[in-house]
């Protein structure tokens, strides 16, 4: 890896900003350079909120990334906006609980993950972001599984019940990602 860019996009409250931050914290833990840039422009209610995380072995130049290596889209408007922007050869992770579509592109890898449902089954729909994150990390190997668990522990350590839910949902997302990538590589 030299540099990897991912845009996390959804509606306000889905935890896309936090998902990006958790990834950035993991990157720092592994000694990498990171930049986390949120969207802060005027947005209408129900519109998209997104952040971009750049993780790199080298000094990071532009924090603005128009065509990221990967996108995790949490809702339909984000899917419409960002699916066409993923760099050719990149990765698109689609929250299939809320998006009943896949991108009409053959030049990227797509993983459809029922993240909301997975989070609900794990104990809280609010952990949707962590399911997406687990899947993303499994599919890219951008940071290690154990690094992210450590970050979750640090951030949620005081709230044991919440930590347990998030670790479970993260694992579920991670295993989903592993099997999705596995299937692809066998195909």
């Amino acid at each position, binding site marked *: 890896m030299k540099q990897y860019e991912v845009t996390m996009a959804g509606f306000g409250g889905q935890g896309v900003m936090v998902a990006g*931050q958790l990834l*950035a*914290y993991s990157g*720092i833990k592994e000694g990498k*350079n*990171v*930049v*986390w*840039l*949120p969207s*802060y*422009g*005027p947005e209408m209610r129900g519109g998209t909120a997104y952040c971009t995380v750049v993780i790199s072995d080298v*000094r*990071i*130049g*532009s*924090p*603005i990334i*128009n065509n990221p290596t990967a996108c995790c889209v949490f809702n339909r408007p984000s899917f419409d906006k960002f699916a066409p922007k993923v760099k050719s050869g990149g990765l698109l992770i689609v929250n299939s609980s809320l998006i009943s579509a896949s991108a009409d592109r053959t030049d990227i890898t797509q993983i459809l993950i029922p993240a909301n449902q997975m989070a609900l089954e794990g104990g809280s729909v609010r952990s949707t972001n962590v399911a997406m994150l687990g899947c993303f990390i499994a599919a890219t190997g951008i940071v290690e599984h154990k690094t992210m668990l450590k970050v979750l522990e640090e951030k949620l350590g005081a709230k044991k019940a919440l930590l347990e839910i998030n670790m479970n949902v993260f694992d579920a997302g991670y295993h989903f990602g592993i099997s999705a990538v596995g299937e692809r590589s066998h195909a």
Partner: protein
Amino acid sequence: MAKILMKGNEAIAEAAVRAGAVNYFAYPITPQNEVGEYLARRLPEVGGVFLQAESEVAVGNMLFGAASTGKRVFTTSSSPGISLMQEAISYMAGAQLPVVLLNIMRGGPGLGGILPAQSDYFQATKGGGHGDYRLLVLAPSTIQEAVDLTMLAFHLADKYRNPVMIIGDGMIGQMMEPVEFPDSYTEPELPPKTWAATGADGRKPQVVKSLFLDPIALEKNNILLHEKYQAMKREEIRFECYKTAPKNKILLVAYGTMARICQTAIDELEGEGISVGLFRPITCFPFPEEALYAEATKSNIETVLTIEMSMGQMVEDVERVVARQRPVKFFGRTGGIVPSPEEVIQQIKQILASGQPTKVKV
């Protein structure tokens, strides 16, 4: 201390506290509100004062008053708010008061928008308020540099008894990067503030003012200020060169976040076998004149291309310095639109092909 992930606005706020800022007066405005949010919680911990003023005009005068006592004072705002402070900034420069101001610039003119811009360069470096004065202007391009320059700003403000302004755009304010604060902060020793109004018990009152009705006294004050600005030009020039090399035909000039975007463009062009260098002023005043002239007039350089998030402001300093020794071209986007690395690459290729950048079509 280990690296921590911080938002630019919060990192700058923490840097100010660590540099000894104990008075913060401000009025909220996007995109720098996290500074006030952070300091509202943080300053009481160190016995400091956080005060949300009734307006930016009031902020400016609170800064004047608090700085007169010799304490380290700080404010942050964004373009329209900084405009409202200009009268007080001019008074503080005239009265030789150390104060640090942060402008997280947004698109203008007028109320404009809230997205990133660099269109307050003239205001910061050429005045903004009335009279013969200058601010020392620092332009960070990373969050770590924003931390380092904020701490330095308080030292320089005291060293020169002059307002210092840090300029960044919305990205510097909003993005998060790993930062490291020094375990212990020491700065070169400064002379005692014998001019400060600290209570006249047992001594003659101190007068801190910018009013000199006697023309001879006023000119004397202006000459004294001018000598300080000359000293800044000798001692405080800061800049960085990125991949400047003998085979380059084009020299880019950009500051702040825009310089980082140029770095990405330069790296990508390198992959295509096109070598381009970047000159990045870190101090916008004093402007790194000698260093830029030396880079721009190297025999291999055919064109100097200035890139800004404005319609062309710093480019006037670049033109002044290059003094027609080389063609100086300009490319910029405004209104909160940030030139992408791809756009910068296209402009460079266009110049290599035809000598001219392409116009922005909207």
